[in-house]
């Protein structure tokens, strides 16, 4: 049996760990050019030279002190000491800052290898790095690398194998010197580090050396302070407290931080040229970060993206809609010729053909959305976006950083719910969760755009713009309702974040990701839509040909007086309810209920008129009703999966119920308003 070796990927946010992980293991962790995507540790495997390697993708963290939930995950994993090799990834294009993680790792007794990732970006920015010199200085294996370029992996494997065969840890001697010396600033530390070390005696904690523990004590790290308090005898504990108290007025965190950067600077100054400042802040960035222009730009980009989505989705939608009448009449004719029962023909046409066609329409929107937003994310615009909206969000009680989980809600609400972990306080997280529910996931955008194009044709782009505006308005309302309570004025922590350099999109990676996601969603949606369509077909199938006699229609007609209050006839209302389960279900229900004409035989005439779902919908539903349903769908609650995740992350049922109630009221209220405005204008 071959043995298993474990490799942990550690590094600052956005250093390329997940890209590396995905290419090594063939798995698909979320990547994108902004800090804070991975919030949970992921595991994968690869085999090289008959050895199995287990790879751990850790959430990005600036150092080993944990300030927010996802950083705790990283820190805990490192401290568990489980890895055979820790690969520390740094962003070579931002070498000096990202090496801080390495400096914070000094004093952890685990074999390491340093990977200088994004060498391509660094070179393009005119930065030269002498990898061999860094290796010599550090005494551990160092590799210049580009995780996005598959050609470079053999170099990594070679280095990794030898790093595991002859494991080396970082030597803490040189950092210790910096810590003790106090540096050029002249701020003498009167050797506080050695005094703490002496007081610690021979105390060590797992893989942490004494020097590391001393640093963390100075930084007032909660976990280490706790450990020391619990495990040291009383007298020594007091001695340490006395040393730490004598530092009143000077901050230990600054002292150690400064020493670590001094250590980093010495490495970098000898072996790398700095990035030229002209490359850093372009004219474009000046606009993107401007407090007014930046917001207009962001708004414009959102709207243009939505319109681009509609245009890109157009061919797919044409195929879906075009196929339906052709296939249905084929089935009809073949069925009649073979003498198949009408019930079978009805099932095939309404459930299988209808469901598949609508899935194709919807998937074409999904494809467009994933494609367009993927590019935005990869380029690195997201961080500018969040910068431009920081002041606005901080008035709502959040901070700019919250934009990123909110924005990733377009991919999937459930995923973005976990993404809110990057926010520092629980109140901010809960508030972000509330706002997040207003951000439509790809499927919801697809449903809304699909409905808008079906009902309002060329006016559909207006809905794109209106939708974006309504989302912002809902943010304002939500923060009014929840903000004060969740994030009291004194608990508001502001933005501290880096703006990553722009990256050229890697088209191959983007194409693979978009293709895979679209296919995955298509399969899932098809299953869901067929299931729901079959269910509703069965509920509304009338053997005697009179659909009015089915239970579903009876119930439907009974509730219609109430649902019409919100401008939705019962079929639409049922679709709205289905949308709570999943967005696809909403379409599945519509596809059967509106294709159902009552008499199975009238199908022939309808098919002859080559009617498809789009036409069927547009001819039966009035514009005001369509408007009501659109608004209701826009602010409908997300799917069950997202609700489940929200419950888990919020940690209370009360919160889930509150948020749900809020969005039910919001969506039905908007439907009501939309309907009545629609009655006036159409």
């Amino acid at each position, binding site marked *: 049996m071959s043995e298993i070796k474990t490799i942990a990927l550690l590094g600052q946010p956005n250093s390329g760990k997940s890209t590396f992980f995905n290419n090594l293991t063939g798995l698909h962790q979320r990547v994108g050019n902004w800090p804070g995507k991975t919030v949970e540790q992921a595991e994968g495997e690869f085999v090289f030279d008959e050895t199995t390697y287990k790879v751990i993708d850790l959430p990005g963290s600036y150092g080993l002190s944990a300030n927010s939930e996802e950083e705790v995950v990283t820190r805990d994993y490192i401290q568990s000491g489980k890895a055979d090799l820790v690969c520390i990834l740094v962003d070579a294009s931002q070498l000096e800052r990202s090496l801080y993680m390495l400096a*914070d790792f000094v004093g952890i007794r685990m074999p390491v290898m340093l990977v200088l990732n994004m060498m391509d970006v660094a070179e393009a920015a005119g930065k030269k790095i002498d990898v061999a010199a860094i290796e010599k200085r550090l005494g551990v294996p160092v590799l210049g690398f580009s995780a996005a370029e598959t050609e470079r992996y053999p170099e990594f494997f070679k280095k990794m194998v030898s790093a595991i065969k002859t494991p080396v840890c970082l030597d803490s001697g040189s950092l210790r010197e910096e810590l003790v010396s106090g540096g050029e600033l002249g701020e003498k530390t009167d050797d506080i580090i050695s005094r703490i070390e002496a007081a610690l005696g021979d105390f060590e904690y797992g893989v942490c050396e004494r020097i590391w523990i001393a640093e963390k004590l100075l*930084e007032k790290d909660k976990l280490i302070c706790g450990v020391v308090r619990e495990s040291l005898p009383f007298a020594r504990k007091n001695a340490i407290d006395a040393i730490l108290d004598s530092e009143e007025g000077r901050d230990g*965190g600054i002292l150690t931080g400064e020493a670590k*950067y*001094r250590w980093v600077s010495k490495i970098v100054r000898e072996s790398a040229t700095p990035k030229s400042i002209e490359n850093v*802040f372009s004219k474009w960035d000046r606009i993107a970060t401007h407090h007014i222009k930046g917001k207009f730009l962001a708004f414009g980009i959102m709207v243009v993206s939505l319109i681009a989505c509609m245009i890109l989705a157009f061919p797919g939608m044409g195929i879906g809609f075009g196929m339906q009448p052709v296939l249905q009449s084929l089935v009809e004719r073949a069925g009649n010729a073979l003498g198949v029962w009408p019930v079978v023909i009805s099932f095939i046409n309404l459930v299988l053909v209808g469901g598949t066609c609508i899935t194709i329409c919807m998937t074409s929107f999904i494809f467009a959305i994933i494609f367009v937003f993927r590019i935005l994310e990869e380029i690195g615009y997201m961080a500018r976006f969040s910068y431009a909206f920081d*002041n606005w969000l901080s008035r709502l009680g959040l901070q700019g950083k919250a934009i990123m989980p909110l924005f990733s809600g377009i991919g999937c609400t459930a995923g973005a719910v976990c993404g809110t972990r990057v926010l520092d306080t629980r109140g901010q997280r809960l508030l972000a969760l509330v706002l997040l529910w207003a951000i439509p996931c790809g499927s919801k955008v697809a449903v809304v755009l699909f409905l808008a194009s079906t009902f309002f044709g060329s006016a559909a782009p207006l809905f794109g713009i209106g939708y974006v505006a309504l989302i912002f308005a809902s943010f304002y309302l939500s923060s009014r309702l929840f903000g004060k309570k969740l994030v009291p004025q004194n608990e508001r922590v*502001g*933005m*501290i974040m880096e703006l990553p350099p722009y990256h050229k999109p890697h088209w191959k990676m983007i194409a693979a990701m978009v293709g895979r996601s679209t296919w995955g969603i298509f399969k899932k949606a098809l299953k869901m839509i067929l299931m729901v369509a079959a269910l509703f077909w069965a509920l509304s199938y009338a053997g005697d040909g009179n659909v009015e006699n089915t239970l579903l229609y009876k119930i439907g007609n009974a509730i219609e007086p109430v649902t019409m209050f919100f401008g939705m006839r019962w079929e639409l209302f049922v679709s709205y309810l289905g949308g709570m389960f999943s967005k696809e279900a909403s379409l599945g229900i519509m596809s059967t209920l509106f294709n159902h004409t009552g008499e199975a035989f009238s199908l022939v005439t309808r098919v002859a008129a080559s009617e498809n779902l789009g036409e069927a919908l547009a001819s039966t539903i009035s514009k005001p009703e369509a408007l009501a349903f659109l608004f209701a769908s826009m602010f409908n609650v997300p799917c069950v999966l997202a609700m489940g995740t929200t419950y888990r992350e919020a940690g209370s049922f009360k919160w889930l119920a509150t948020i749900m109630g809020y969005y039910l009221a919001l969506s039905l209220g908007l439907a009501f308003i939309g309907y009545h405005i629609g009655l006036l204008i159409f």
Partner: protein
Amino acid sequence: MKNAEFVDRLSLTEMGENRCGTVAQIEGDSRFISRIVSIGLTPGSAFTLLKNDKRSPVLVFCRDTVIAVNHKESSQIFVKVES
């Protein structure tokens, strides 16, 4: 002499755009210190101020990185401006 020192004690928010400077002192609780230090601003670090307007976070270029620090917290970072 005392006075001259006081004039030097300028906070990041009071500094002009496109000027270079060095961080002199950082004040705040340990959470803030930990965040700001780990992203690259420590006493002694040289930086260029890229953007400083009241309505958005201050932008500095320091250690190869463009860093955004929110206004309130920037006023706890004191700097020496190069003339």
